[in-house]
């Protein structure tokens, strides 16, 4: 038995195919989900992939957050459905208030596309169990609106509860507060980050590293052992 992991396609999503492939590479069954369809096709987990859903009009993720598929995802995420938001997916999760804080334009106002070093700060989430806390990984980062912001009170709370899941190392590429690259909700089922693990799962493509595969093997093991 394997797990069914859905990947949502919105108009403007770019990384759905890579995410489906990463799911398959990890050994799970990839399932395409459509933004206008409330039906999640009985998947066991959902990936919100990167891109520019609805052209990033209004704010990145702001319109996608109100799409029919998100109605179901928001409801089920609150009930424990594992959800990973990558890049635009992270922006959608903050707009949906499934994760605290918000995403703004990079502080230097340029698009970034580079390999980025990160520290995985916690293995206590559905999507990071295959890493060890403190492990350093390198995966691609490519975005315009990658600056994570939140009130000081919220940042302190995230730190105290061990909910800063990933931190930028060496360089803060976008002005994110406290070098935050990704966070988790309190339950550990909803995780969002700006860098792209799905682009680093096979040695033949990308930068040749497979540091991102652990996201997908983590969730697979959790679901299969559940």
């Amino acid at each position, binding site marked *: 038995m394997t797990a069914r992991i859905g990947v949502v396609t919105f108009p403007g999503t770019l990384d759905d195919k890579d995410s489906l492939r990463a799911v398959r590479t990890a050994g799970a069954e990839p399932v395409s989900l459509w933004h206008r369809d409330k039906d999640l096709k009985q998947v066991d987990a959902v990936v919100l992939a990167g891109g520019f859903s609805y052209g990033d009009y209004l704010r990145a993720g*702001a319109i996608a957050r109100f799409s029919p598929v998100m109605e179901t995802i928001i409801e089920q995420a609150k009930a424990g459905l594992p959800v990973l938001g990558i890049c635009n997916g992270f922006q959608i999760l903050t707009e949906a208030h499934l994760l*605290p804080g918000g995403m703004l334009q990079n502080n*230097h*106002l340029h698009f970034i596309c580079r390999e980025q070093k990160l520290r995985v700060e916690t293995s206590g989430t559905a999507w990071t169990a295959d890493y060890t806390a403190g492990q350093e990984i390198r995966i691609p980062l490519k975005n315009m609106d990658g600056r994570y912001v*939140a009130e000081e009170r919220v940042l302190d709370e995230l730190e105290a509860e061990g909910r800063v899941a990933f931190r930028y190392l060496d360089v803060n590429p976008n*002005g994110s507060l406290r070098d935050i690259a990704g966070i988790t909700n309190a339950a550990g089922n909803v995780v969002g980050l700006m860098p792209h693990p799905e682009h680093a799962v096979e040695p033949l493509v990308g930068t040749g590293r497979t540091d991102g595969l652990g996201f997908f093997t983590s969730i697979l093991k959790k679901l299969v052992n559940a």
Partner: protein
Amino acid sequence: MARVVVDVMLKPEILDPQGQAVQRALPRLGFEGIADVRQGKRFELEVDGPVDDAALARINEMAETFLANTVIEDFTVKVEESK
């Protein structure tokens, strides 16, 4: 028909690099004496029917849930009579 304007601005404590870039460009263009610039969004809503308390309450709700993300932005709503 009345027009309702919703202005959305980043919260004051949040860095606005676009506004800073504009501010830094001003002296070079000969516009002196501007200490700070913050950039925001303006929505002009043409309302069918009267802009009564109920209509304004709905527009406030719209601004709070959709036009602004109140985690990072503040908004104001004001009514303008259109010509």
